[in-house]
C-alpha cells in the first residue's frame, strides 16, 4: 500500500536524475564552446524518460506509435543519421546550425536556451516532489 503512495514520487525522482544528467551534458557543451572539432551532445529527454520508467509502465503516455527518430507519422521513413548517432548511453550529437571552420558544433544561443529551460524544469520537478511529499506527510499525520 505504501508503494502505491510513493509511486508518483518515484516517477519524479527518475525525472530529476535525468534533468541533472542533461544539465551536466549542457554544461560540458558550454565548457567546450571554443574547442576545435568538439561535437555537442544532448539527451533526448522523452526517450530517456521512457527507458528509465520502462516504456509501458509510465504514468504518462510517453511512448506512442511513432518511432523515436523524430518522425510524427507511422509512414515516415526513419532517418539513418538520427538513429545511428544515438549512442548506447542515450546521448546524441548535435548538428551544426552555422558551420564553422574549426568543426565545433556548439551553438551558444541554443545551449544557453537549453540550459535555462532545463534548470527551470529541474526546479519544477523539485517542486512536484516537495508538494507530493508534503501531501503524503499530512496524510500520515492525519491533521
Amino acid at each position, binding site marked *: 500500500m505504501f508503494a502505491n503512495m510513493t509511486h508518483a514520487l518515484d516517477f519524479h525522482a527518475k525525472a530529476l536524475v535525468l534533468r541533472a544528467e542533461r544539465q551536466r551534458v549542457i554544461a*560540458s557543451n558550454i565548457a567546450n564552446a571554443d574547442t576545435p572539432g568538439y561535437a555537442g551532445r544532448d539527451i533526448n529527454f522523452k526517450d530517456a524518460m521512457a527507458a528509465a520508467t520502462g516504456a509501458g509502465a509510465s504514468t504518462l503516455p510517453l511512448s506512442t506509435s511513432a518511432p523515436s527518430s523524430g518522425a510524427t507519422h507511422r509512414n515516415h521513413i526513419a532517418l539513418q543519421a538520427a538513429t545511428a548517432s544515438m549512442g548506447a*548511453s542515450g546521448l546524441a550529437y548535435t548538428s551544426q546550425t552555422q558551420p564553422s571552420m574549426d568543426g565545433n558544433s556548439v551553438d551558444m544561443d541554443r545551449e544557453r536556451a537549453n540550459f535555462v529551460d532545463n534548470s527551470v524544469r529541474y526546479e519544477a520537478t523539485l517542486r512536484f516532489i516537495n508538494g507530493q511529499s508534503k501531501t503524503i506527510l499530512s496524510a500520515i499525520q492525519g491533521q
Partner: protein
Amino acid sequence: MSMFSIFNVSGSAVSAQSQRLNVVASNLANADAVAGPDGQGYKSRQVVFETVPMGSDASSGVRVNAIRESTEPLKRVHNPSHPSADADGYVTQSNVNPVEEMVNMISASRSYQNNVEVMNTAKTLLLKTLQMGQ
C-alpha cells in the same frame, strides 16, 4: 551526486579561458616590442584547446593542449633614426595584430562569463535540492 561534476567541467573551462586571457595579455603587452640584437622579435601566441573526459561519458571538460607561436613574418618598419634599426634603416617588430587580440580577448571574456553563470545555476539548483522535503 552527478551535478557536482558540473563544477569540475565549468571549472576546467574557466581556467582554460583565463589562460587564454593571459596569453592575450602578453601578446598585447608585446605588440610594439622591438626585436633584440639577434633579430628574433616577439611572436604572437595562441592557445589550443582540447576536450578532456571527466569521469563519465556525459561530462567533458576542456584544457589547454598547447600554446603555439604564430608563423607570420615579423613586422618591419622603416625608421632609420631608431637605435635598433638595421643597415637599411628597418626596425623589426613583433607580429602581433592588436585588433585580432582584442577580438580574442572579448571572446575569452564572454566564454568565461558563460561558464561562471553555469556554475552559479548549478549551485542554486543543488542548494534547492538540499532543501527538498522541508
